[in-house]
């Protein structure tokens, strides 16, 4: 974001509903590409015979994806996030209640950020 765009007068209500054709076209392109990525994997699998061997590979995907998301995310974070992640894991493991785990985690991260 450049400084000039920041300095533009913000949210005048006359312009709130304006739709620039070029902007709409870019948004449409983003929407189509994103939808293609969302359906692409399953579409591909629906076109081929899924063997037991491939099924075994798919079975580890959920865990592998979650670990791949969390690893770099937590590696880049600090002690506050690590501590809060432990809080979430313990609550989730003990109570099996996702809402409780989320609330505990968010409270912990706010608290730990204040401490560290």
């Amino acid at each position, binding site marked *: 974001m450049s400084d000039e765009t920041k300095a533009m007068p913000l*949210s005048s209500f006359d312009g709130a509903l304006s739709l620039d054709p070029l902007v709409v076209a870019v948004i449409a392109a*983003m929407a189509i590409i*994103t939808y293609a990525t969302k359906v692409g994997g*399953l579409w591909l699998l629906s076109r081929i015979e899924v063997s037991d061997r491939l099924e075994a590979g798919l079975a*580890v*995907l959920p865990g592998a*994806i979650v670990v791949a*998301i969390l690893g770099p995310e937590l590696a880049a974070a600090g002690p506050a*996030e690590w501590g809060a*992640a432990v809080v979430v894991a313990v609550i989730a493991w003990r109570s099996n209640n996702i809402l409780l785990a989320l609330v505990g985690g968010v409270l912990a991260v706010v608290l730990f950020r204040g401490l560290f």
Partner: protein
Amino acid sequence: MTDTNERADSRRSEAEPAPDGCSEESTRSSGQSVGFPPVSFSREGVKIGFLTCVPVAIGVAGYGIAFGVIANQAGLSVAEAALMSATVVAGASQLIAVELWADPIPIGAIVFTTLAVNLRYSLMGAALEPWFSHLSPKQVYGSLFLMADENWALTIRDLRTGSGRGAFLLGSGIAIWTFWVVSTVLGALAGGVIGDPTRYGFDFILVAVFVALVAELWDGRSTLLPWVVSLGTALLTASLLPGRWYILAGGIAAATLEVIRYE
């Protein structure tokens, strides 16, 4: 782990007394998913998905407000920001797009970044195959439009209990979509009034959802090797490549390993 199984059983008997003849039909490699009741697509599934996802969607709304603010500062109108949230429905790529936004619009960079950031969804969608292969194309391709990181995680969690709720992704997606679009509008209207979402810990909700999921996905020794491979690949890729290629790399590496060592 035993908790999960007990709860899955009680839920199942609530929904319908499934003829348990199917329990020997499939012995899958992930121990917990043995004995699926049939996957169905019901209004009940939509409702449960929606209600389960509401607390998470409130956290997503923290980001929607931030997105609305940034989109507005980048020069998008309220209507344009809302249109993007309603049709793209992919938070990270939208935030990056409005960060890149300038005059003239860098169309190539925005389009390519959107693809690169969102390619992980193909893998996430593929992970739903064991359940979604029982649904009609209309149900599958409609639900996938509303797939985001958060409700994908909740859906995997629900389906692994053997709930058979094929409509969970749709229901949870409706919750995400509604909160995402409304909060975008609020953010775009409010401009800079509301501060940084990290102040309230909203930025941690996504991490928390995934940590909770990891605690449940752990399936003993058999998950250890694929997870280590995925983690190592992801960390290495993250240090070498920008963007989110590391998610794709980690997932593909672990799945490939399983396909190779399958016997």
